[in-house]
């Protein structure tokens, strides 16, 4: 009987601990969101979206940083996602079980979790050193390298979900694989691939480390791609660590904007995926 109580007690203790661990994890998320809201909402104003980043103590907003982040994220996706989608197509449709594909899948998964600061150094070495100065295009390239693994992975997974019968039907009509891929597989996997793009945007829009020494930062309005460009993450980094109150307030406001954007993107990606799975499940 005592042995039984002992086992039960042990069970109870460990299950309680697992409950505590889950509560702690959720508490961290809640604490972070609460801090962002309480600090960030105070700094929210129309000026954020109409004025440039100010000098210490002055009035200003984040317009140039928001613009720069949008431009570089968009460019990063425009450069990175076609590569990711095409490579994912190769793995799913042409390579499949070849040794090359196995290696590429492996390397891609390594790139997926590689430290982003390394990618920043890489782009610094191959672009910034040769151009002689920091530039928005270097920042966009760094971001595009981070976008490739995400889109590659989702594209391959989503193409593999397309029922084999659709591919066979297209082939039976005499279509070459390229025609099947473009006219049958891509449309069938469209929402899945779009999800991959959303996840890639979510991944790169908050990245700071790869931009530090590629795009650098710019206190002023600039639309030139071959010049340093302001961007939200680096502005947050510099302003948060500054001793000036107005800079710190802007950093919090920027942090709130970036987090809300990314969480909305991740949640919509998840919703699309859930809908997709429900559709697949009922279709069978």
């Amino acid at each position, binding site marked *: 009987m005592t042995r039984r109580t002992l086992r*039960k007690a042990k069970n109870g203790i460990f299950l309680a601990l697992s409950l505590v*661990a*889950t509560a702690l994890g959720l508490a961290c998320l809640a604490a972070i969101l609460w801090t962002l809201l309480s600090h960030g909402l105070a700094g929210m104003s129309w000026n954020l979206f109409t004025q440039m980043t100010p000098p210490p103590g002055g009035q200003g907003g984040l317009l140039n940083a928001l613009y720069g982040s949008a431009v570089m994220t968009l460019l990063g996706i425009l450069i990175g996602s076609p590569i990711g989608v095409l490579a994912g197509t190769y793995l799913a*449709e042409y390579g499949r079980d070849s040794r090359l594909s196995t290696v590429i899948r492996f390397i891609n998964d390594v790139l997926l979790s590689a430290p982003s*600061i390394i*990618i920043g150094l890489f782009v610094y*070495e191959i672009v910034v050193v040769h151009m002689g100065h920091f530039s928005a295009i270097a920042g966009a390239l760094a971001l595009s390298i981070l976008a490739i693994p995400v889109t590659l992975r989702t594209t391959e997974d989503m193409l593999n979900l397309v029922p084999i019968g659709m591919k066979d039907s297209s082939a039976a009509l005499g279509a070459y694989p390229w025609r099947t*891929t473009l006219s049958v597989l891509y449309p069938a996997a469209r929402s899945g691939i779009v999800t991959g793009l959303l996840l890639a945007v979510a991944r790169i829009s908050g990245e700071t480390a790869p931009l530090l020494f590629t795009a650098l930062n710019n206190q002023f309005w600039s639309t030139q791609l071959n010049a340093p460009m302001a961007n939200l993450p680096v502005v947050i980094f510099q302003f948060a*660590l500054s001793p000036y109150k107005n800079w710190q307030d802007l950093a919090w406001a920027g942090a709130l904007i970036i987090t809300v954007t990314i969480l909305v993107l991740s949640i919509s990606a998840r919703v699309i995926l859930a809908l997709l799975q429900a559709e697949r499940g009922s279709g069978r």
Partner: protein
Amino acid sequence: MENSGSETDTVAIIDPRHAAKQLIYERIFRAATLSAAILVLLILGGVALSLLRGAWPAVSHFGFSFVTREIWNPVTDQFGALAAIYGTVVTSLIAMLLAVPAGFGIALFLTELCPPLLKRPIGVAVELLAAVPSIIFGIWGLFVLAPVLQRHAQPWLIAHLGHLPLLGGLFKGPPFGIGVLTAGVVLAIMVLPFIAATMREVFDTVPPMLKESGYGLGATTWEVMWNVVVPHSRVGMVGGIMLGLGRALGETMAVTFVIGNAHRISSSLLAPGTTISSAIANEFTEAVGDLYTSSLIALGLLLFLITFTVIAAAQAMLRRLERRGFAV
């Protein structure tokens, strides 16, 4: 009607010009996808090569002593990576010590205890924690976590553990708030969702039959977990832990905010330190002189080698699991 129709169709399909054009398109498309796939390999190779080239001046100047010396003095052009390596390893170890048990707990809760209704929301919440960008963890760690640790946790550690014979040295000195310990805690929170998610996926691959057999013998939930599920998913768990470790080792922004950026090795975990990635993030744009820049790139090369090894090992383990027939 069928006769004439099918005849023209056949003619259209085997029209040699049409077929040749199709074949050309096919070749172009195939080549495009193949070159995109190979580009992924080239990127990794390019990263390694460019880091090697950038690091070469420092490597040839300092030789092997680069990784064994603690000194980091831009004024006299003396650079050694030991303090940064030490900081990287210690912060990651602290993170793993905290995050592995907690991640295990969350995975256990989600697979065995959680009411089905809550499974999805809690799972999504944990994944959202993974989506929060690292700079947000940094700013939160600096302005919220560090003061809390400084006021409450660190004085307690100093008072209660500071006098212990062996461990005591780790908890000596004034409570700075920012420092190695705080960086480790922030890292733990960051890698927690990755570890929890991988462990949960691995636990889900355990055949229900095995668990039911355990319960059938009268085992408690914990006993089934510890004696059936854990042994069965050992490889996957280690893979998930190492994936988390790879992230912790390379994490930059969150650490840069709270580590304190001091190029020295302190016996106390409460003292400021530095890591490879935070040193690069802090100093790279301000580095003057080729040797300084090159030394920072050499740090990057070290980080690349360390994280590549860890992540590759983790992937290999998770793959071994897949090949055994369980999807991860």
